[in-house]
């Protein structure tokens, strides 16, 4: 039995462009088989017990297997003119969907996992930043995050101190805002939408809304996919497989404030699919 809190959330299940082009995606959501396809001009998602609630946003198809507790979260920046929206595609990872999100919120790993791209020794320090659970939207936010990066984005030349904001608007989705090398007054927006196939397997759909007219699409996608493939080698080798919501045997530090808040938020809201409650 999956908790209603979990069933009543929205999850990404496909890239909209692929389905609209006539592809039929046979996949899984929360351990159950589903099919995503176009029928009579609309996108439908069908499970064993019939159709699921469907919405389309940010280049992806989202489904809710229960009764939606709320509409899908907004990303206002997706509507801003001048931004380039990039669907990166899918990366399958043998890990808890929650671990994939937590890793996306983490900056301390940049110098070691994305060496010479998103970070480099000796620039390993994570300065104090602010984390809160916003009451109006019930989202986890981390702000005033800064980090030195040798090549922060495809459009960046040389090292810069990048500023970040992180946002968790749904249990298996996260959005980051980072300094845009081409436009210092604006933020680049990168999301990851994680489809929980099961508690220990997920499809990760990165998505971007950038101010970058110069870089060819294929290069942008290749850059982002390289980053996620590097993350995958970590995510498939963490113990335990499920995300521990009780600190138990793990020792976080000040650099992990976002991860701590995310775990607390999941626990408070009963979003425990892919999590373990006992310390082990």
């Amino acid at each position, binding site marked *: 039995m999956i908790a209603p809190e979990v069933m009543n959330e929205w999850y990404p299940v496909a890239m909209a462009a692929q389905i609209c082009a006539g592809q039929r995606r046979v996949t899984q959501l929360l351990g159950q088989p589903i099919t995503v396809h176009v029928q009579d001009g609309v996108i439908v998602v069908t499970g064993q017990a019939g159709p699921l609630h469907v919405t389309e946003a940010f280049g992806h198809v989202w489904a809710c297997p229960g009764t939606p507790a709320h509409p899908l979260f907004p990303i206002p920046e997706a509507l801003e003119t001048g931004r380039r929206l990039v669907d990166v595609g899918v990366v399958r990872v043998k890990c808890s969907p929650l671990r994939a999100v937590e890793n996306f919120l983490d900056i301390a790993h940049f110098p*070691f996992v994305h060496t010479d791209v998103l970070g480099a*020794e*000796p620039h390993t320090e994570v300065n104090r930043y602010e984390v809160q659970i916003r009451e109006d939207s019930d989202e986890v936010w981390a702000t005033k995050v800064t980090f030195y990066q040798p090549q922060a984005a495809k459009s960046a030349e040389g090292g810069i101190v990048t500023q970040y904001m992180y946002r968790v608007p749904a249990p298996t989705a996260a959005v980051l805002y980072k300094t845009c090398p081409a436009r210092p007054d604006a933020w680049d927006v990168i999301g990851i939408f994680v489809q929980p196939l099961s508690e220990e397997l997920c499809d990760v759909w990165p998505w971007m809304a950038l101010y970058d007219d110069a870089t060819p699409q294929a290069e942008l996608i290749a850059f982002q996919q390289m980053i996620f493939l590097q993350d995958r080698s*970590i995510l498939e*080798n963490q*113990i335990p497989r499920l995300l521990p919501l009780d600190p138990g045997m793990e*020792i976080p*530090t000040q650099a992990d404030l976002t991860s701590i808040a995310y775990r607390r938020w999941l626990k408070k809201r009963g979003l425990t699919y892919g999590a373990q409650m006992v310390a082990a």
Partner: protein
Amino acid sequence: MTQRWTATGLSQDLPKAVAMAGHWQGHDLAVWRSASGRLQAWNDRCPHRGMRLSHGFVRGETLACIYHGWVYGADGGCKHIPAHPALTPPATIRVAAFACVEQDGVIWVAPAETVGAPVALRGLQPLRSISLTCDVVAVRLAEPALSGDDVLRGLVQIGGQACEVCLLVQHGASGLTLHALCAVGADRIAASRWLEDLRRRAERKGAA
């Protein structure tokens, strides 16, 4: 209690400044050799966010976790947290260590409190490690000259000659690993072929 020692690899397969995965009866271990050659076996789980330390990297006499670079010294204690360079990590951040010795070219592991030494293997030289998808019974059925449970020994025919062999058994989630030794002076290439043939025969027995 010498039988608590389990062979987890051969010395020849773990050079200096390298970490590898090891096992002791279902416990995953990070087995690593420092730059000066010191061998250690630890719980394969970083105390920070659970990353396998066997994926880590050796720097000098320390092992660093590949995820966030936490550095662990020879006693398993955390020496450095890169995200907080000015911080002296509290002594409570420590990776659990196993006993680990090297003898006759074999790397042996056991729980930390284990006393005594692993079984001595005189007159034998390390050959290679090989993984099988069957159990020990199938190995003995395939080669009746071998006897024993955790240590299989016997005189077998290799290249037309009787040769003493010893197979150290390590149980894993999906089968066995055999760490093989053969008599000093034996033809290693022929012995290696014999071992591969034994695997084929044993896996066929195991499947039957």
